[in-house]
């Protein structure tokens, strides 16, 4: 116990108490205000910046993936569309050709029919014309005959025969 009473580190003294308070208060206030607080702030800011940048990169990456996916989908869609358009076009071509063929045949038939009808009409008209002409000629002949009759019999006979032959032609 002798040394314990004299053991100064175990007994606090005024000087140490006073000066430690002063010095530590100084360290705390000065360094706290000028160093530790700004450092904590700067560290926080830096970490926030890094975290933000990482998050942004991640979101951009996601967006990129999304866009890529979309593009691929679009591409696939386009391809599909192309195929379908091609198919449609082919079908259309075929149908057009087929239609055209049918139409052509129909048209041809129509033309043939019309032509036949026209021919018939023309024929009829021609016959009518012929009949008319024949009648006219007959009248003419009759006129001429009548006129000739008045001249000779032989001539008449010859003329009638000629007329008959003429009629046979029809």
């Amino acid at each position, binding site marked *: 116990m*002798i*040394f314990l*009473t*004299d*053991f*100064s*580190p*175990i*007994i*606090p*003294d*005024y*000087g*140490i*108490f*006073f*000066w*430690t*308070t002063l*010095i*530590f208060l*100084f*360290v*705390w206030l*000065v*360094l*706290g*205000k*000028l*160093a*530790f*607080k*700004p*450092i*904590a702030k*700067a*560290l926080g*800011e*830096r970490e926030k*910046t890094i975290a933000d940048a990482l998050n942004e990169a991640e979101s951009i990456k996601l967006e990129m993936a999304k866009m890529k996916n979309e593009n691929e989908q679009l591409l696939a869609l386009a391809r599909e569309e192309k195929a379908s358009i091609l198919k449609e076009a082919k079908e259309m071509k075929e149908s057009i050709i087929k239609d055209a063929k049918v139409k052509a045949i129909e048209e041809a038939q129509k033309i043939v029919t019309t032509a036949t009808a026209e021919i018939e009409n023309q024929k009829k008209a021609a016959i009518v014309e012929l009949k008319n002409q024949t009648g006219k000629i007959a009248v003419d002949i009759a006129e001429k005959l009548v006129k000739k009759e008045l001249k000779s019999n032989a001539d008449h006979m010859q003329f009638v025969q000629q007329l008959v032959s003429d009629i046979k032609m029809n």
Partner: protein
Amino acid sequence: MVIQIVPLRKFLREVSLLMTKSAPLFVLVLNYFLVSLYLRNIIIVFFCLNIGVWGVNDLSAQVATSTPNHTTDDHTQSTHEGETHADEHSPAAGESHGVTAHKKETSYTDMMMDHISNSNEFHLFGHTSIPLPCIFYTQDEGVHAFMSSEFEHGHKAVKGFVLDNGVARRILNPAQRSIEHIDYTEREGDKIYAVAHGEKIELEKASTLIGKTSWYDFSISKNVFTMLLSALILCIIFLYVASKYKKSSNIAPNGAQNFFEVFLVFLRDDVVKPSIGEKWEKFFPFVCSVFFFILLNNLLGIVPFFPGGANVTGNIGTTMVLALFTFIIVTLNGTKDYWMHILWMPGVPWAVKLLLTPIEIAGIFIKPFTLMVRLFANIAAGHIIILSLIGLIFIMGKNGTEMGGAITGGAIGVPFVFAMNFLELFVAFLQAFIFALLTSLYIGAAVETHAHDDHH
């Protein structure tokens, strides 16, 4: 709350990471400590080898004392360790007075305690000390201020004050305070005397918080000087580091900034944030200040020569102030919840409350008290162990009379001191960390607001 081991493991990992990250600075700091530890061992070996010379002196002293009325030479009073500043250079000591040979009783325990105690001068080696300002407040004579070099290492009384093994003491009897010359100081039981012209003058005990003295010592003592120095070093380091952060906060850190960032980030993420929670930012500067102040003073304490060597954090006054700061901060920031938990614990039967309240109230004071004692005891004990191991040289050498014993003591002591120094290096970091961690845990408990249902 339970102290986790995880932060420590993380800390060690961070430190190993740090080694690779900021190698140059780390190597520099490590080398500084390794060199200082190495030099310390060389000094011890040097002591060991010199024991022979001292032994001869000491032996002659014993012979001298055994022959009465024989005027002895100066060396009789010079002690072997060269620590007690004997009268070699004092012309008045031996020849002029021819005092009866008096073998000073200096036990190794005393020497050890002097070493870890505060002192009014900064002892470098032999008889060389750095003078420090002495500021004494006396109740009867006002303030005395002078440099400690005026004491002439204890051979001169200045304004009624005497230096005993580096510690200033006042002459008890006002009538004797005019005395100027002092031969030496000696201890008898728990009393200390200054001897002048064969006359014993009783000295008052050193000024402490315990017991009344007629004077108070407000000197810039060895410890205060070291603290001022460490405050200066801390300011230089952290103002520089902070300036780097201000200049380029978004650029990757390098050099000193990187070295300290590891500590700062560790303190923030593994000490302050988990312990305090949301309000961590308010207390981060305090915990950082405490951590680095303790760490630097611990490390300076390991360095055996100037500017180290002062037992700052191993002095209870210093740890008391630090613990008081924690106590004040905890008390001022205590929420209603915190006080309710102390005074009238919710969710507990009233009979238990009656038992719990006194314990909790005692806990308010026990917490900072343990902080104070833990740091003080760890650091002081480290110093004492190292001094004890060095003491083996003197004890086994029987105060220098047996050279073989001294060498054996040295052979045992030196490797152990070497190992102890590394342990002390670890303890310096550990104790700073524990103080910071517990401080933030106490603050965390005080500022915490929680729902009562999910607690207890």
